[in-house]
C-alpha cells in the first residue's frame, strides 16, 4: 500500500512538473527573450510582463502542487528512487507535451537525447 501511495505521489510530481513546464515555456515565449527585454527596458518591466502572463501564474500553481508532492514522496521513499524516477519520467512526459501542446520540432535528435538522459538517470539510482 505504501508503495502504491509513493508511486501516486511520483505520478503527481511528473504530471504537475510537465504541465508547469509546458505552461511556463509558453508564457516565456509570449514575453520574449528576457536578456533583450532586460537590456532594453530594465528589470521592473521584465517582472511586470512575466507576472501579467496568466500561463505563468497557472505554471506556478502546477509547480506548487509538484513541490508539495515531491516533499511528500521524499518523506515516504528514498531520494535514490524518488528523484531519478520522477526526473526521468518528466523528461519523456515533457517531450511528449512539448510536441503536442507547444508544436515544438521534437526531432530524432531530441527524442534520442531525452531517452539517453532518461535511461542514464535510472542507472544513477
Amino acid at each position: 500500500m505504501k508503495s502504491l501511495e509513493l508511486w501516486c505521489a511520483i505520478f503527481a510530481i511528473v504530471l504537475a512538473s510537465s504541465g508547469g513546464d509546458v505552461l511556463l515555456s509558453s508564457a516565456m515565449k509570449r514575453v520574449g527573450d528576457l536578456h533583450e527585454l532586460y537590456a532594453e527596458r530594465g528589470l521592473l518591466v521584465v517582472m511586470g510582463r512575466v507576472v501579467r502572463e496568466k500561463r505563468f501564474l497557472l505554471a506556478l500553481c502546477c509547480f506548487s502542487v509538484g513541490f508539495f508532492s515531491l516533499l511528500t514522496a521524499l518523506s515516504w521513499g528514498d531520494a535514490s528512487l524518488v528523484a531519478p524516477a520522477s526526473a526521468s519520467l518528466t523528461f519523456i512526459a515533457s517531450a511528449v507535451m512539448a510536441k503536442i501542446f507547444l508544436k515544438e520540432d521534437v526531432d530524432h535528435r531530441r527524442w534520442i537525447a531525452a531517452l539517453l538522459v532518461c535511461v542514464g538517470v535510472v542507472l544513477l539510482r
Partner: protein
Amino acid sequence: MNLKKYLVLFAVMCFGSIGDALLKRGMNDFGPVDLHHPFRVVTALGNPWILIGIACLIAFFSSYMTALSWADLSYVLPATALGYVLVTILGTTFLHENVSPARWIGVLLISCGVGWVTRGPALTAPQPREARIPSPEEQHEIA
C-alpha cells in the same frame, strides 16, 4: 548560442541539483508526512535546510525562465541534465562516495544525451506562412 546562454544553462543545472539535495536533507529532519494531516507539510518551511533549498530553487527558477525565453522546452530539459553528472562527480570527489559501474554508465549516457541535444538548434524555427494562391474568381477580378 553564445557564452552567456551556456552560462544560464549551467546555472539551471547547478541550482536545481543543489536545491533538491538540500530539500532531501531538510525532509530527513522533518520525518514522514502523515496522510491524515497533509497540511502539516507546510510547517516543514520552518526548517533552515528547506529554506536554503528554496532559495536555491528560486535561483534555479529564474535561470530556467530565462532559458525558456529563448530555447525550446525539449532542448532545455536534456541540456540541463548534466546536473546529475555534477552531483555524482561531487559525491566521489568530496564525499568519497562509492559509485558503482552502473552509475558511471548512467553518467556516460546522460553526457552523450546532453552532448547530442546541444549540437542541434535551440529553438524551433517559426513556420513560414504559406503564400495564398488567389482563387480563379479573384484572378479574374484582378485581371
